[in-house]
């Protein structure tokens, strides 16, 4: 992985966002094919394409390659319009039924980008009143004709509804799942933090400070699991450029301290500032962070996820084989949270758990996925910790 491509991508994003002409000396060394592949992997191809248009790079490309970029932008613009329309309909219905709700993440951040489609979205997340889950389920599967991707009648973190061609709505009953219990506790009474949208009673939003705290916490959840990609840095830059002058930083830092996220926030903000304003003089630690994000891509990697889970099991000890054993055992015989989310029927009929174990094990063995995963676990070197390791971040946070 050449992190120079990622640095170039962010530089072009910065040129678009700041409406500054890209430096021809820098552009000449860029590889358009690599930029496309990486921009796609990080979910920012549409924004990077706008940057490419500001350079002379496109004129030297064959027509079919330019078309590939154009298709990426058209698709991002179309998806955004579709999601925006659909989300408005869903939220308006919830408002009419007295169900409090709040769109999250990309659907809020996209408004701060200068053009539609520059902030790509593969799904839309909406937090809503969990006590009305049955009403929402009935509406989504009935009037709106969605298919259920995941839904649990018992307590869970989110329900996922999908419909062609692109609709994918994650309806959150909570902001965080059991993977980050400290965040779950922090957001236990999230409704109390929310403000009504203008002229609405049940369509809600965070204050700018609280939105940013949630954005950082959500990013960290992924960062410390499978990893997060460059889009988070662009979001950070866009948010801070628009909002930093008006935010109450005393409150912000106080809350980030409670979550142990002050260092992470500062690192991402500094790195995004440098890269999107074309400053390539990075400290060693910043290069490590950038490399980690480059490798992670939009959705993180299963290798990172596995490694971080192993590190969590290992904690402060040096017993790597104990952590590996625990990992394998937990994968073979998952805890109740797994059933709650993935197999609610089994969760409600616990007598079926042994049968489910055998069925799951056979299925995973046949597909070969589990054997491969366990081989990777055994081979994983837990000596060197990457920037996404929660232990690395904890040490920094503790000073």
């Amino acid at each position: 992985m050449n992190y120079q491509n990622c640095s170039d991508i962010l530089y072009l994003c910065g040129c678009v966002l700041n409406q500054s002409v890209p430096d021809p000396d820098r552009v000449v060394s860029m590889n358009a094919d690599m930029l496309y592949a990486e921009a796609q992997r990080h979910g920012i191809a549409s924004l990077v394409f706008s940057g490419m248009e500001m350079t002379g790079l496109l004129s030297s490309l064959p027509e079919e390659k330019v078309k590939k970029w154009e298709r990426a932008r058209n698709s991002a613009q179309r998806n955004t319009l579709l999601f925006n329309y659909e989300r408005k309909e869903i939220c308006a219905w919830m408002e009419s039924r007295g169900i409090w709700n709040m769109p999250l993440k990309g659907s809020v951040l996209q408004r701060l980008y200068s053009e539609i489609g520059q902030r790509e979205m593969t799904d839309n997340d909406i937090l809503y009143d969990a006590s009305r889950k049955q009403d929402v389920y009935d509406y989504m599967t009935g009037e709106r004709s969605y298919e259920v991707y995941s839904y649990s009648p018992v307590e869970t973190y989110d329900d996922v509804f999908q419909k062609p061609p692109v609709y994918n709505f994650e309806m959150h009953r909570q902001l965080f799942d059991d993977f980050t219990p400290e965040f779950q506790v922090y957001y236990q009474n999230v409704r109390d933090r929310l403000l009504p949208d203008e002229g609405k009673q049940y369509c809600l939003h965070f204050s700018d400070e609280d939105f940013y705290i949630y954005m950082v916490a959500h990013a960290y959840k992924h960062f410390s699991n499978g990893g997060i990609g460059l889009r988070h840095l662009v979001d950070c830059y866009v948010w801070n450029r628009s909002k930093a002058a008006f935010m109450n930083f005393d409150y912000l830092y106080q809350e980030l301290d409670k979550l142990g996220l002050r260092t992470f926030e500062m690192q991402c903000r500094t790195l995004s500032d440098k890269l999107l304003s074309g400053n390539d003089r990075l400290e060693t630690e910043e290069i490590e962070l950038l490399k980690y994000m480059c490798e992670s891509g939009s959705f993180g990697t299963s290798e990172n996820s596995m490694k971080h889970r192993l590190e969590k099991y290992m904690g402060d000890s040096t017993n790597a084989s104990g952590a590996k054993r625990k990992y394998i055992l937990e994968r073979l015989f998952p805890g109740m949270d797994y059933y709650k989310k993935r197999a609610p029927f089994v969760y409600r009929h616990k007598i079926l758990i042994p049968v489910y174990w055998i069925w799951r094990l056979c299925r995973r063995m046949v597909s070969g996925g589990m054997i491969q995963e366990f081989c990777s676990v055994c081979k994983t070197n837990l000596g060197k910790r990457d920037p996404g390791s929660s232990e690395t971040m904890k040490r920094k946070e503790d000073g």
Partner: protein
Amino acid sequence: MRLKYNFVCQEVSGSFIAVAVGDDAAQYSRLLRMNQTGKDILELLKKDITEDEIVHTLSEKYETEESKIRISVSRFIKTLMDAGVLDC
């Protein structure tokens, strides 16, 4: 004539894009790009309307010769017909 699908329009860099939304998105997947006049015509076509009525409405809005508006309207309607989004 009128549009077959429910379209939404959005301004992007001085021009407009339109896509079929809701359940119509699965029926029609293309993204249409147009100028301000195209957007106006598209909005008018959300209800049943004749070509003459469109020309008349736009003539009242823009200080342009009706003959020129008629040419633009005809051309754009042909584009929409070719794109398969009009019920005539």
